[in-house]
């Protein structure tokens, strides 16, 4: 076959366009940093960044690994409490956060091992049980989690010896972490894992006969996604300086689902859109605060009915429209 064709075929394997989108996203974040001036808006932008991180982890577990897991808020809480624990024991910021990620990864590994043979619905129930156990445990183990699970006075994030006290300063830290994670997400996409995980989701039994390590891959996405959740929890905790039993509750859990589904399961870029929605909509509809959840519920239903592939699906169908019309014009 011609080199041309070989290159085209190879490029579909290599998933080009990811780096371009990453560059666009970085530019977007930079322009947001310039456009946003008020304190409350900066707060919102930071929330968007840190929820994007948590949702990205959840995307890896749910959209890539295909596992319905209710444990992400537990992992965020665990990350938060762990980082507070290390902070109380005078560990530097970086050490606290890394420690939080390691602990969360280990916890996820343990949960994944217990639920190794559980099928989808049972896996979901198991993670739900873990979260419920966590809620009670966090409230009661006062030595680890403080009286009634409340810890205050947690240290500011420290980068290169500089304390980040204002929202504006924390913005740069969060943006950097998110960018790094998005890079990892791009690298994941541009690897054989994308195809292997698709097979794991769509035909797990046959995949085993093909030698695809189904269970190991599910465990990998679960642990990686949970560790990222722990990271998000740790970052939030240092940013806000406190953590309580309700910091990562049921509403956020449902929120993470919403973010990933609204954004669309087809691409990890969707979590940015989903998180933006989740953060922005309550603000835009400030007067209708009380009706928020009803609106979310109704919105979710509408999105599912009209855009089965989430908001990212719209982008995809626009792209395929353009491709089809250009190829038609070439042939005619």
């Amino acid at each position, binding site marked *: 076959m011609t080199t041309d064709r070989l290159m*085209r*075929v*190879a490029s579909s394997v290599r998933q080009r366009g990811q780096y371009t989108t990453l560059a666009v996203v970085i530019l977007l974040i930079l322009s947001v940093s310039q456009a946003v001036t008020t304190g409350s808006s900066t707060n919102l932008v930071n929330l968007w960044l840190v929820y994007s991180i948590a949702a990205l982890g959840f995307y890896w577990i749910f959209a890539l690994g295909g596992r319905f897991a209710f444990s992400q808020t537990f992992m965020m809480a665990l990350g938060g409490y762990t980082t507070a624990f290390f902070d109380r024991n005078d560990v530097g910021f970086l050490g606290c956060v890394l420690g939080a990620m390691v602990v969360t990864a280990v916890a996820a590994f343990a949960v994944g091992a217990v639920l190794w043979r559980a099928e989808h619905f049972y896996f979901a129930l198991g993670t739900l049980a873990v979260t419920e156990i966590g809620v009670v445990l966090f409230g009661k183990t006062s030595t680890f989690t403080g009286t009634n699970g409340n810890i205050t006075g947690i240290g500011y994030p420290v980068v290169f010896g500089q304390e980040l006290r204002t929202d504006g300063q924390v913005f740069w830290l969060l943006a950097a972490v998110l960018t790094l994670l998005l890079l990892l997400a791009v690298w994941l996409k541009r*690897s054989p894992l994308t*195809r292997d995980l698709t097979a794991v989701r769509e*035909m797990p039994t046959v995949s*085993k006969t*093909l*030698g695809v390590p189904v269970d190991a891959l599910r465990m*990998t996405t679960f642990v990686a996604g949970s560790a990222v959740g722990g990271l998000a929890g740790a970052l939030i905790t240092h940013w806000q300086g406190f953590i309580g039993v309700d910091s990562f509750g049921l509403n956020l859990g449902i929120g993470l689902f919403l973010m990933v589904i609204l954004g669309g399961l087809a691409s990890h870029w969707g979590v940015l859109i989903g998180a933006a929605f989740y953060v922005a909509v309550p603000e835009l509809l400030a007067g209708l605060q009380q009706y928020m959840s009803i609106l979310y519920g109704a919105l979710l239903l509408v999105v599912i009915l009209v855009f089965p592939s989430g908001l990212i699906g719209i982008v995809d169908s626009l792209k395929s429209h353009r491709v089809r019309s250009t190829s038609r014009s070439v042939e005619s």
Partner: protein
Amino acid sequence: MTAKATELSARNLSVRFGGVVAVDDVSFEVAQNEIVGLVGPNGSGKTTLLNALSGVVRAGGRLSVAGNEITLGRPVQPRRAKLIRVFQSPQLCPELSCLDNVMLGADDANGRTLFAAWFLRSRMWRAETSRMNDALHHLGRVGLAGSEDRAARELTYGEQRLLELARALAAGPRVLMLDEPSAGLNDAETLILRDLLMQIRQEGTTIIVVDHKIDFIDALCDRVLVLEIGRLIAQGSPAEVWADSRVIDAYLGAAPDA
């Protein structure tokens, strides 16, 4: 005549589903580079036997490939022993491209971990490129050369079956097991398939074929095994087997008074 080495040896294979015995104490051997046909009326347990050999169902008995004992009941060991199965109805990822589908079946597991994706990218890309070239080669062999980037769901039924075959070839099989490969193919396509399988045999693969088309089996197979209600009732060359009264009984019900 040189005695050929035994590639696959099955002893006392049996598969039970609840009270039903689908495969009943079946024993046979397949020599290296042989093409063996597996025939029998509907419900005789042919597909179940293939399932047992590829580890998809729990089975009793013993199995060895090239002298190595294989644990039954799990797909891991048959796969490692290069006992590769092509299913009766195509089991593909419809949204992935043909090329991706073939690369799924590749034997090479290099660089397919998250660690490699994040920290060993150059090694990962090298493995990917070699897998891709391999897959392109196999797609060409089965006659799907132009379709690499088409999504699997766009293919016709016949093409999807060829894609499955390409994927099986990507695994570098020692023993290739095919379930009704000629179903849904017209005469011309069946001939092409036959030639392709003979070529694969030339290259050193042993083949077990389940099929219904008698001409296809006759032209292709060195030996034929006949199953009826889970039991092996005859084996031998195609000519011998079709003349066997037990086989005629099984297919027609009762042989006319001889």
